[in-house]
């Protein structure tokens, strides 16, 4: 139930972010993730940043030890893959706002492209610490017929400050059928509030510790749900009933720690 496949392409997206592509046949939908195994190291969940073709891709930001190792992989290195797992973004919105912070763009980009391909309109709010760290700037520019708005913490591009401020203004000023977001949890918590005030349905891709990937071991417990199978995409409505959201996550032992 596991495929061993070589990395066939590697691309630096930002100074801290890499896309790895591999040929992996199983059907995948936007929002889903794979468990990617670096033999001798670890196996971690990674959302698919490229879902449509046989050639899939993941986009990894240097965070923990394993992601740092993944960044060092060169074409030809073999990795283990299982999945895709998890639920997907609903592709029906006609007017979509995408809000991506940090590496979150990797999660929302393929679905937004799909919405655009189906004739929907896509607006993007993209945030990063600094201009160089804006992920998929070109890719989002190409799909964002509704415009691409940028925010950086240091003001080196676009609005200086949080992408949540940009997004809050957008949902107030314009009408959207849905907001999709992925990024730091504090950011998503704020966005859920803004979207609710504007009465726009919002969908967040949530991250938690993951082990089995098949709703068994409980490592990714999130309220009465499991991020690996009930998520990773949760509606704002459902998040209201999940006390964990924005409050705590669980470490590898299952202990509650601040989110």
């Amino acid at each position, binding site marked *: 139930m596991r495929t061993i496949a070589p990395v066939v392409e590697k691309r630096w997206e930002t100074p801290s972010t890499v896309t790895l592509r591999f040929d992996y046949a199983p059907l995948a939908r936007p929002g889903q993730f794979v468990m990617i195994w670096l033999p001798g190291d670890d196996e971690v969940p990674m959302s698919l940043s490229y879902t449509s073709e046989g050639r899939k891709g993941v986009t990894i930001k240097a965070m923990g030890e394993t992601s740092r190792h993944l960044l060092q992989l060169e074409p030809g290195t073999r990795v283990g893959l299982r999945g895709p797992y998890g639920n997907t973004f609903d592709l029906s919105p006609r007017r979509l706002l995408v809000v991506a912070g940090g590496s979150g763009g990797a999660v929302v980009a393929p679905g937004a492209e799909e919405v655009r391909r189906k004739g929907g309109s896509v607006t993007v709010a993209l945030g990063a610490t600094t201009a160089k760290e804006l992920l998929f700037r070109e890719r989002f520019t190409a799909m964002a017929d509704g415009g691409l708005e940028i925010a950086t913490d240091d003001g080196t591009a676009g609005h200086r400050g949080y992408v949540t401020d940009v997004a809050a203004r957008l949902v107030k000023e314009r009408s959207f059928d849905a907001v999709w977001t992925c990024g730091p949890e504090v950011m998503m918590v704020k966005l859920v509030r803004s979207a609710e005030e504007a009465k726009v349905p919002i969908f967040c891709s949530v991250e938690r510790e993951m*082990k089995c990937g098949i709703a068994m071991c409980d490592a990714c417990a999130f309220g*009465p749900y499991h991020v690996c199978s009930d998520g990773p995409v949760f509606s704002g409505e459902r998040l209201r009933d999940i006390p964990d959201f924005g409050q705590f996550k669980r470490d590898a*032992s*299952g202990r509650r720690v601040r989110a």
Partner: protein
Amino acid sequence: MADLSTTVAGVVLPRPALLASGIWGESGASLAAAFRAGAGGVVTKSIGVKPREGYPNPTIEQFGEWGMLNAMGLPNPGIEEYPKEIGQALAAGARVVGSIFGGDADEFAALARKMEATGVHALELNLSCPHAKGYGSEIGQDPQVLAEVVKAVKKATTLPVWAKVTPNTQDTALLAEAAEKAGADAITAINTVRALAIDPVLRRPVLAHGFGGLSGPAIRPIGLACVWKIYERVRIPIVGVGGITTAQDAYEYILAGARALELGTAVATKGINVFREVHEGLGRLLDEAHFATIEEAVGQAHRK
């Protein structure tokens, strides 16, 4: 329809199939959700004295329909943190069995006291995890050591004590006999079967830990054989576990001698609704066979 309630060592369960230890058991919300989805009760993740992260991934390997291998490495938040999770399960109205694992009799006894204080209805002793150094089956394979642990726990608590035994031994029933003699109130059988997966391309074991425990349909006939033998040799109730996925599987375990059941892997392969499915189907099977209660059917395959 037949009465599906059953009693294990004084603990009345509204329905016979419980959530097995290690599945949906780290968080109180998950335990509560399993109960609301129809589980007759829930067994917690095995809890130790200290928080433990478990092994690195990969921790599982799936084998399609017939089973899966895991070496989670007993991750758990530790007994000091865990009571709030149990509180959530109890608040939902669930019958909760607290599973504990320790390195020796004293550690088990200390854990038993703390687990009792959380309000659980019974204790399950993990004497059978096949892949944790110094714990589980490394202790539970030796009837003498197992007996010491059971005695120490019995002395430390007034709760009913279920001893969960390993199939990775010459004679599982011998372990059950030792547990009964030492005062155990019930036997849970079985834990996973020690096994290995190798990746032929990479030429290495798949799981980070190497060995793991096999679960799911592949081990059902092994579990049945263990329950059968144990039923012939002990008088205390047996809780049957291992590969139960359908109502018929559950019925077979009851006929072999089980008074209650636990489901693990089936929760992943069929979803949490598996409890409703198994209970509904089991009710029909008991009706067809004219058993009015589970009790009447227990061990009925042993008739000469």
